[in-house]
Structures are given as structure tokens and as C-alpha cells.
């Protein structure tokens, strides 16, 4: 009974006068509501409105039409290819780097000396802290298709390769996955590190006494405690990868041909490079719809609601 009361208090807060509750609501929630309305609801409404117009390169609307949606479903032969690529890019980056590699980094840097662990985490944070243009400039130099490029210097001088390798033409999809993954891994790394640090130390000692090795400790103590952070990172990074394209634009410009044009970049190219704003808005509408659907599915699938109620990584 006492526990129920505690839970009620936790959920509803202590009983306070109605005026105070209203004031708290305004103080704490208003900024978030205003920002959400300004930067999400209004743009979505504008996007939907524009998608039903013929807004083109001189920003003029001459008619309201459903042509843009007809074109998406009937006339755009590039779309299946773009959607397929987006799928590979999002889930490839997520599976290889943002979750798996982030987790590996967190596990390794928390299991070594504290100073060394901190140093390596700092190194892996560098891509995220660098301005995007600088980060991509370094990539462009590293993969330069001539002998000048860092990679080619290594391949030709150290490994004796005859001709320089042109990754941009030979493996553009791998290139965008790796360049984005190096940035994405650090978010997972930090969240997982914090979660691992939250696990009571005595559990590891007890397991060690019981004869559990490192792998068993990770499998039976660490990973179960990380279920919630992994859920969060997966959902958050899926949405982030779906809508972000700036690194791809800077690195490959979506090319060669359409090889690295993911959906969000495709929307950008249609709208801003070709001046087809109406069509771009219609394409963007699906991005919004998919984003909301993925967020809701993730919420449901990973039971995120429970995550937000009480800390789950503490073991009772």
C-alpha cells in the first residue's frame, strides 16, 4: 500500500493548490510546447500545404493540385532505388556502428584503466565535436583518388598497391556508412558507458567469485542492464539517420549518379537543386509520416514508456 502511494506521488506529484500546478505547467512545459509548435507542427502544416501546390523555382503558386502525389506513386522511377538505399544506409549504419560499435567502445573503454578509457572515449568523440565541413574535408583528403590521399599513401607505399584506389567510385555506400558511423558511434558509446557505470560494482565481484568470466559477465549482467539504453539509441539514431544528410551531401553530393542519394537527400535535391518545391514537399511528407510511425512503433516495441517511469538499470 505504501508502495502504491509512493508510485502515485511519483506520477502525480504532491497535492498542491490548482493555481500552483497551473503555474508549474506554464513554467515547465510552455517552452517545450512553443518550440514544438514553432519547429515541428507549423513546418509540417506548411509542408503539407505546399505539397498540394505547384510551387516551383520562382516560388510562385499558380494552382492547387494533387499532381505531386500522383508523380510519387506513378512517375518517379528513381524512388524504389532511393528507398532501398536508405534502408541499407540507415540499418547498416545503425547495426554496424551506432549500436554495435558504440557498445563495443563502451564495453572496452569501461573495462580498461580509467584514464586510458577516458582518453579513447575522447578520441572517438572528436568526429562529433568537429564541425561537419572540417570533418568531411578530412575525409575528402583521406580518400582522395590520387596518390595524395592518405588511404592511397598507405595502400601504395606500405602495402605496395599499383594504382590508387578510388573509394568514392568503387564503394560509395560503404563510404557514407563508415563516415556517418564514426560520428554516430560516439552517442551510443557515451550513453552505454553511463549505463554500465550505473551497474553496482558488487554484482561483477559476486559473479567473478561464482566463476563467471568476462564474456559471461557481459552477457548476464551488463547486456540485460543495457536493454533500455540500447532501445533509446536505436530509436533515436534511426530517426536521426533517416532525416540527416549533410555529411553525405558534403562528401559525395549524393553521387556518383544516385548511388548515395538517400531519401532525405533526394527530397533536398528535388526541392532545392531542381527547384521543384511542391514535389519536394510531397516527398518530405512521407519522411515526416515515416518518422512519426517509427517513433511510435519504437515506443511500443521497446516499451519506452516504462523506461521513462523509473530507472531500470538499478538492480533491486
Amino acid at each position, binding site marked *: 500500500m505504501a508502495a502504491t502511494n509512493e508510485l502515485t506521488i511519483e506520477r502525480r506529484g504532491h497535492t498542491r493548490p490548482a493555481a500552483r500546478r497551473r503555474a508549474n505547467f506554464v513554467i515547465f512545459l510552455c517552452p517545450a510546447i512553443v518550440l514544438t509548435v514553432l519547429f515541428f507542427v507549423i513546418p509540417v502544416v506548411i509542408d503539407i500545404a505546399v505539397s498540394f501546390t505547384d510551387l516551383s523555382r520562382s516560388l510562385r503558386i499558380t494552382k492547387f493540385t494533387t499532381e505531386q502525389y500522383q508523380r510519387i506513386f506513378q512517375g518517379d522511377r528513381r524512388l524504389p532505388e532511393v528507398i532501398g538505399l536508405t534502408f541499407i544506409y540507415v540499418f547498416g549504419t545503425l547495426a554496424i556502428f551506432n549500436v554495435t560499435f558504440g557498445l563495443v567502445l563502451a564495453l572496452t573503454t569501461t573495462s580498461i584503466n580509467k584514464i586510458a578509457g577516458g582518453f579513447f572515449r575522447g578520441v572517438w568523440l572528436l568526429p562529433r565535436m568537429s564541425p561537419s565541413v572540417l570533418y568531411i574535408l578530412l575525409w575528402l583528403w583521406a580518400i582522395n583518388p590520387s596518390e595524395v590521399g592518405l588511404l592511397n599513401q598507405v595502400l601504395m607505399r606500405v602495402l605496395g598497391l599499383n594504382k590508387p584506389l578510388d573509394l568514392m567510385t568503387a564503394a560509395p555506400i560503404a563510404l557514407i556508412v563508415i563516415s556517418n558511423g564514426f560520428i554516430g558511434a560516439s552517442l551510443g558509446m557515451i550513453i552505454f558507458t553511463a549505463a554500465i557505470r550505473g551497474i553496482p560494482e558488487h554484482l561483477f565481484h559476486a559473479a567473478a567469485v561464482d566463476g563467471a568470466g568476462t564474456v559471461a559477465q557481459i552477457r548476464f549482467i551488463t547486456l540485460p542492464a543495457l536493454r533500455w539504453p540500447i532501445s533509446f539509441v536505436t530509436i533515436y539514431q534511426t530517426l536521426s539517420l533517416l532525416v540527416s544528410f549533410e555529411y553525405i551531401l558534403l562528401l559525395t553530393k549524393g553521387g*556518383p*549518379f*544516385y548511388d548515395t542519394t538517400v531519401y532525405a537527400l533526394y527530397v533536398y535535391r528535388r526541392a532545392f537543386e531542381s*527547384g521543384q518545391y511542391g514535389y519536394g514537399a510531397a516527398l518530405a511528407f512521407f519522411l515526416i509520416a515515416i518518422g512519426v510511425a517509427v517513433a511510435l512503433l519504437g515506443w511500443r516495441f521497446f516499451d519506452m514508456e516504462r523506461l521513462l517511469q523509473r530507472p531500470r538499470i538499478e538492480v533491486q
Partner: protein
Amino acid sequence: MLHCKSRTVALLAAALAAGSAGMMAAATRTLAQNTVKLELWSRQDPSGPLRPGNVVKAAERLNKELDAEGSGKRVQVVVRESPAPGFDDDALQLLKVFGIGQGPDMFIAAHEWICAFQADGFVLKLDDYIAKYPQHFGTIFPSLWESAKCPDGTYAIPQDAEARMFFYDKKLLRKAGYDDAFIEAMPKRTLSGDLTMDELIDIAKQVMGKTKVQFGILHRPSKGPDYIMVFQSYGNGFVDPKTGRLLLERDKLAAAFGWFERGVKEGVIPANNTAMEFDALRKQFYTGNAVFWMYGIWDLGTYAFPTYGLPSDEATFFADWGWIAAPAPKKGGAPGSLTHPIIYAIAAHAADPELAVRLLGNASAADLNTDHAVTTTHLGIKPEQLEDPRYAKAWPLARATELLKITRFLPNNPQFGDLNSIIFRALQGVETGRLSAKAAADFVIDEATASLKDVVVK
């Protein structure tokens, strides 16, 4: 009494102060009313700083004319520089600026975009003004006016012209065993239709096989006019002459893409040409690592002489370097070149259209245009420029003028800029092996019919 006097003095002083302030305000107003501020939109472009520069200079001349006429008006030019990397991006940006009612009074653009501005009613029709000011516009080459026309009239003033070609490195050809007779005959053989596009690939391949040169033929890495020259050589006009609508001919498109496809297959055109940087491409050619470079005459004055130290003396230059027109696709066929005039245009809502016309007329004066031509190796717009000793001394201009006999323009169709984006994308697809030549032609037709209006497909 004293009190009364001081009150009178104070009142008088106040009245004087108020009067003089009023007069000053009126004078300022008059001055302000007489100065017409004209805003010029210009892309920051190292290959033509005098395009806006000449308009600024022209304001001084026009103000003197206005003074001599006793007019109270004066012109002030404000240059609004756009950081767009190319003329296509610049035009798209300017269309948006006009779209939200923030457009300039005058602008500088690539000629093929003029009808896009005309179609949306952003640009002033100039036929009457051109007829009214023959002293400014009367001697401009008639052929250049074609680049300033839309179906219902003239909407721009040609600012310059140029010629595009295939530059070649004679040293490399000699090293590969070609004799001087062959090397020196190449330009004439091209003009007579004897040297073909495929022979160009063969020569490049031979040179690559016999020397250590890494590249055969290089072209621009971005969307632009040069590669369109190859398409035109293969018979693509892109506009139906009867209707003025965009015209796409599948076989001719596939033939042009086929040339690029063969170039890559033979290892002559690098598969990643469109992924390379402009400066890196130039460097490869001017430092002896490429046989041919498809570009324009202004590259000599803008980069080759000052940056890469190529000899600016005519005889020394032609000893080791040369250029040819775009060869014919088959023996006996027609060679081609492409000129891509830049134009001045006046906005439909310009503050004072008459003054803007006179200003751009002054900016088109032979001496000012020659300043631009000789400093950036662009071709002039008036015959009297040919008599200017500075122009005669700038030998690349005289030599490139030979190509004007066979030159073509990009079509002045409002949608050509968009079509060119599609063509460039397909070209990238062909060179990187993502599309065959035939698939590229299909791609261009599919994309164009889906996203552009009134496209005729044959």
C-alpha cells in the same frame, strides 16, 4: 526692456534655426530624389570581375552625360554579389529572390537562363530601347543577339562571348611518336571534318600507351555547357525549331553518351571525372598529365598563364600547346564549338528602366568591354573592338574567333537549365558505369518527361 529684447533675439534665433533646418532638409530631399540607386546582381566570378566592374565605371560616364543634358538625375550602382559556385546555381537563386519580390534592378546571367526569367515576368523587354540607343547597341554582333532572345523579343544585352574547345598538349603527342605534321594539322583536319570524335579517343589512348601520362581526355566535373558541345556534335539541338519546345532524340542522345562510354571503356576518360575537383583537373592537364582538356578559351587568361605558367607569347604557346574544335562524329561531318555568352538584363520592376538601359549601354562601350575581354580572354561583342591594339595583341582572342564560324549556342529555353542537370546526372551515370549509353538516353527522357513540361520526344 532688456528682458523684452532678449526674448526677441531668442525668437529670431529660433526662427532662423528652424528655417535653416528646413532648408537643409529640403536640399537633402532634393539630392536624394535625384540619385537613382540601381542594384546589380552579380555572381562572384574570378573569370569576369569586370562584368559588374564595367557597370560601376559606366555610372560615371552616364552621370557625365546626365550632367551635360542638364538633368538633375544621377545614377548610383550598388553591386549585390552572390556566392553561387556556378551560373546555374546563381540563376536558380535569383529566380527565388525575384519570386519573393526582393530582386535587383539589373542582373548578370548566363544567356540560356534569360527565358526562364522572361517566362515568369521578371525581366524587361528591350527591343524598343535597343532601337532607341543605336550609339550603345547598334554594332553588337548580330549573332550574339540570338543568345539574348526569347520567342517574343529581346530580353538581354550580350556582355561577352567565348569559344570552347579541346586543348591538347603537343609535347605528349610528340613523345608518343606523332610527328609535327600530324600534330599541327589537327586543327585544320578537325575543321574540315576529317578528324572525328572517335579518333580523339584513339589519339589519347595511343599517347597513354606510349607515355606515362595518366589521363587521356578530361572535362569539367560539374554541370555546365562544355560537354553539351559533344552532344551538339552528335546532332542534339535540344529544341524543336518549329515549336521552340524542348526536343529529345533518343538515338542522338545515346550516340553522344556512347562517346563518353567508349572514352571510359578505353581508359581515356577517367570514370571519376565528375568526382574530381576543377583545380585538380586543370592541374593534371597543364602539368603534362593529360592529353586533352575540354574547356574554354578564357581558361588561358584566368588560370593557364597566371597560375600554371604556360607561355603567354603566341609562338611559344603554340609550340607546345594547341586546341581543336569539337570534331565531327563521322568523317566528313560537321565539327562544332560552343559559345556561352553572358548577358546583362534589366528587371521588369527596375527603379528607372530607361536609366538602367543607358547604364548598361555605357557598360557595353567598346573600350570597357575590351578591358574585360583582354584581361580574362573572353571574346568582345563589337567589331570596333577588333581595331583596339590591346585586343589585337591578345592573340588567344583573335585565334579563338576562328571558331565562331562553326559555333553554336545553348538553347534559350526556360527549361534548358533543368534539362542540363538531368543530362549531367546521366553523364555521371555513364562514366561511373552505372548506366549504359542507351540507358542514359532513356534516363534523360524519363526524367525530363516526368519533371519538365512540353517535352517532345523522338
